[in-house]
């Protein structure tokens, strides 16, 4: 809608061009037959028609002819004309001016329309891109509303999925694809929206949104199914692992106890001793499995709240070694005197280290040792636990930390130890991973360094 100010600018500019053209005519008058210069006023009409439309252009056309008549056609300073054919010339100029202004205005309208459509197409393309980029639909609604507001030429808009009632001082525009109301667009109550644009743009937007809504629904379903599948697989793995890890020692214990108790068996004294020893060691093992299961359930329940304190790495490693018994002699420790302290829960990190050492010793060939080496960094301390065992191919390294890993090759043992180790490491702000090492197994435990107070740091 034309504002008063725009109209005023138009009128003043029109007057300006008429004066300008008149000045040019006055300059050329001595050299050219004056009547032919009337055509120059078309140059005044044309920009006015393009910029302000036909109405003002018509006014300018008439005004131009009057000015031309008054100033340049004899008798000068009168609207009378000495020669009657000059009337015809003026009439022809007027018709040309009207026609040109009508053509210019139409071209202008077409260009505006084309620009509007281009803006709409651009907005749709952008909306499609946004919706396909994989962010959540809710995040995109704000952006889409802004895009739509731009296309409709309103100050601002709000977009909500589904059919929604408007708030106060709002007008609701349904965004419909066919008969289905996909979303509702809210604009200011006062805002005027071009009907044609609305009819053209909103259904396209609705179609896009409908696809996006469908997609996000399918995504959500797929995610849910995947989560269910995983938790199912985990439960199955848990049952199998627990079944195996608890039953193996139980089997050995029951068979040994049975044999000891059976009067029908001819057992030597050393056989009896061996059976008793089996019962003892398998009971210890069973106890350890139960403890690991408890650790794991604590971790999974989020009940393993670490009590973090400053600890020297020597002490943590030392504690873990003391729990290993005779095997501790197979572990070589390299911790430099400058190694900074870490801020962790000592009991939990000892458990991590014990599990790492257990694992490394288990896979080390008899006679070879395990190395524990500390490598201080800027923000974390890395503890390398290196064995000379077979190691693991890269693709199997992550699986090492999955609870209850029991590979298809029928590999025994639940692999609970490393999964618990990673759980505790992460609970303490650390990380645990397997590193490439041609020499054998190589696990790295990164622990956060203690944040020293500024006063101490100096």
């Amino acid at each position, binding site marked *: 809608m034309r504002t008063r100010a725009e109209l005023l600018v138009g009128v003043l500019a029109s007057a300006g061009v008429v004066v300008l053209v008149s000045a040019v005519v006055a300059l050329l008058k001595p050299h050219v037959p004056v009547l032919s210069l009337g055509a120059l006023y078309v140059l005044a009409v044309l920009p006015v028609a393009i910029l302000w439309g036909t109405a003002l252009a018509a006014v300018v056309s008439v005004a131009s002819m009057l000015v031309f008549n008054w100033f340049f056609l004899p008798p000068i300073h009168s609207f009378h004309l000495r020669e009657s054919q000059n009337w015809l010339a003026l009439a022809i100029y007027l018709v040309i001016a009207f026609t040109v202004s009508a053509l210019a205005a139409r071209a202008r309208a077409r260009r505006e329309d084309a620009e509007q459509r281009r803006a709409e197409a651009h907005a749709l393309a952008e909306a499609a891109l946004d919706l396909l980029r994989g962010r959540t639909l809710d995040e995109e609604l704000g952006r889409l509303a802004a895009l739509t507001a731009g296309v409709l030429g309103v100050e601002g808009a709000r977009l909500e999925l589904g059919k929604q009632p408007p708030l106060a001082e709002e007008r609701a525009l349904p965004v419909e694809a066919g008969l289905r109301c996909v979303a509702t667009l809210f604009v200011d109550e006062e805002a005027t929206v071009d009907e044609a644009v609305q009819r053209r743009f909103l259904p396209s937007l609705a179609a896009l949104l409908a696809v996006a809504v469908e997609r996000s629904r399918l995504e959500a379903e797929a995610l849910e199914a995947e989560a269910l599948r995983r938790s199912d697989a985990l439960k199955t793995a848990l049952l*199998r692992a627990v079944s195996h890890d608890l039953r*193996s020692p139980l*089997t050995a214990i*029951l*068979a040994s106890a049975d*044999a000891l108790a059976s009067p*029908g068996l001819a057992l030597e004294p050393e056989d009896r001793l061996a*059976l008793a020893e089996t019962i003892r*060691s398998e009971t210890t093992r069973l106890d350890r499995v139960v403890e690991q299961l408890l650790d794991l359930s604590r971790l999974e329940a989020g009940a393993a709240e670490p009590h973090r304190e400053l600890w020297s790495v020597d002490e943590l490693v030392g504690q873990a070694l003391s729990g290993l018994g005779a095997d501790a002699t197979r572990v070589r420790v390299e911790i430099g005197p400058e190694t900074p302290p870490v801020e962790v829960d000592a009991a939990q990190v000892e458990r991590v280290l014990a599990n790492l050492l257990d694992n490394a010793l288990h896979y080390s060939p008899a006679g070879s040792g395990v190395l524990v080496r500390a490598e201080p960094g800027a923000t974390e301390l890395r503890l390398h636990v290196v064995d000379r065992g077979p190691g693991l191919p890269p693709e199997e390294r992550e699986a090492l930390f999955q609870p209850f890993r029991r590979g298809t090759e029928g*590999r025994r043992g639940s692999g609970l130890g490393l999964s618990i180790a990673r759980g505790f490491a992460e609970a303490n702000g650390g990380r645990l991973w397997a590193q490439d090492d041609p020499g054998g197994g190589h696990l790295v435990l990164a622990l956060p360094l203690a944040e020293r107070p500024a006063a101490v740091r100096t």
Partner: protein
Amino acid sequence: MTRVLVVDDEPQILRALRTSLRGAGYDVETAESAEQALAALAANPPDAVVLDLVLPDGSGTEVTRELRTWSSAPVIVLSVVGDETEKIAALDAGADDYVTKPFGIDELLARLRAALRRVDAPTEPVVEVGGLRIDLEKRAVSVDGKPVQLTPHEFALLRVLAQNPGKLLTHATLLREVWGRGYGDESHYLHVYVSQLRRKLEEDPARPRYILTEPGAGYRLAAPS
């Protein structure tokens, strides 16, 4: 002396079984993996095999299948609850029986004795289990001296069971033996015929004495008296 190969990757179980079986008078050899087991089987064929289902380098099923290509020595598999599919596969591959971990040593010894006895005893033309008498040649069946009329399929089923008295036969084996190839999955046929047989043979079909159910695995005829 009867030689038994015990295969399990758990050293403690191996130790307990070796001691117990030796105490029971068997000559015991042990192996901790499928590879070791196959090597031991080939080097010095045992009279029976006690075989864990899950081995570090393969499954007991594969070992059984391999062994069955050249030996009929009885195989008793050690399974755990949860490994039913694998257990059935091993039995289908030719294993004779199973015990579920944890098991009492007496149970294992009993299964082992029964399996070894079946190998020694040639199939008799007449099988007697308690009051049940099955004459395989004359196709005549009687319970406590009273003759029982069976349909051809019922008799075919009973015959397969009687030819392997005391042995666990899987659903798949029974279906294949009685109905032929292509019926391996239709266990419901089997359940129907077994229940018909029990109604004709058993005093109390709900508490069978002759045709015993191994839940989830198959059926067996009670060991001959």
